């Protein structure tokens, strides 16, 4: 199916564990983004990628790692999860300087 998907949709993990959130898009968009959404903060950019093998930090990158070996995939890894990383995570993709298309989100709880 065409579109942008995220997995898992829900995840509960413990403090200190590594967690990887997956994002896959079928539009061949060059840009991909990861955001977190928290009450009172709106959406904040964590990392973005302009193309395969090119990634850059956003507003809140600390504690996160990304990679982009293929254009269609953009996984986000929390190397050692903390409670402050409890959030809803959204992946998005776009052509350069055009509208972004968002996935359904992953609700992550760190206990």
């Amino acid at each position, binding site marked *: 199916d065409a579109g942008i998907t995220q997995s898992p949709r829900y995840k509960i993990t413990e403090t200190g564990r590594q967690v990887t959130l997956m994002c896959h898009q079928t539009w061949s968009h060059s840009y991909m983004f990861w*955001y977190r959404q928290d009450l009172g903060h*709106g959406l904040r*950019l964590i990392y973005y990628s302009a193309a395969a093998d090119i990634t850059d930090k*956003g507003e809140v990158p600390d504690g996160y790692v990304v990679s982009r070996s293929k254009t269609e995939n953009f996984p986000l890894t929390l190397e050692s999860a903390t409670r402050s990383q409890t959030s809803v995570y959204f992946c998005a993709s776009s052509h350069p300087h055009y509208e972004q298309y*968002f996935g*359904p*989100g992953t609700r992550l709880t760190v206990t």
Partner: protein
Amino acid sequence: SQQGEEDPQALSIQEGENATMNCSYKTSINNLQWYRQNSGRGLVHLILIRSNEREKHSGRLRVTLDTSKKSSSLLITASRAADTASYFCATDEAGNQFYFGTGTSLTVIP
């Protein structure tokens, strides 16, 4: 720090009325975008206005951009109950940084 800030934070209107929400930002932008988010869902793109444009329409939506004041407004005309959602402005800044505001929560009462 966030680039876009919406005003008001919450808005409640009767069906059929117009809804206006505003967005202010701080630095130069490539474009400004408006998104809608229904509760518990992902964001849906509504309209994009580039820095060299002043006004744009899409159906019942009208967006204006004033780069001298670093502000934008979104007008939804003849609102419907289905328009109930949160609305976010987002700025596409030089250097590929992308900032969302904290959103306006719109409630349209049938």
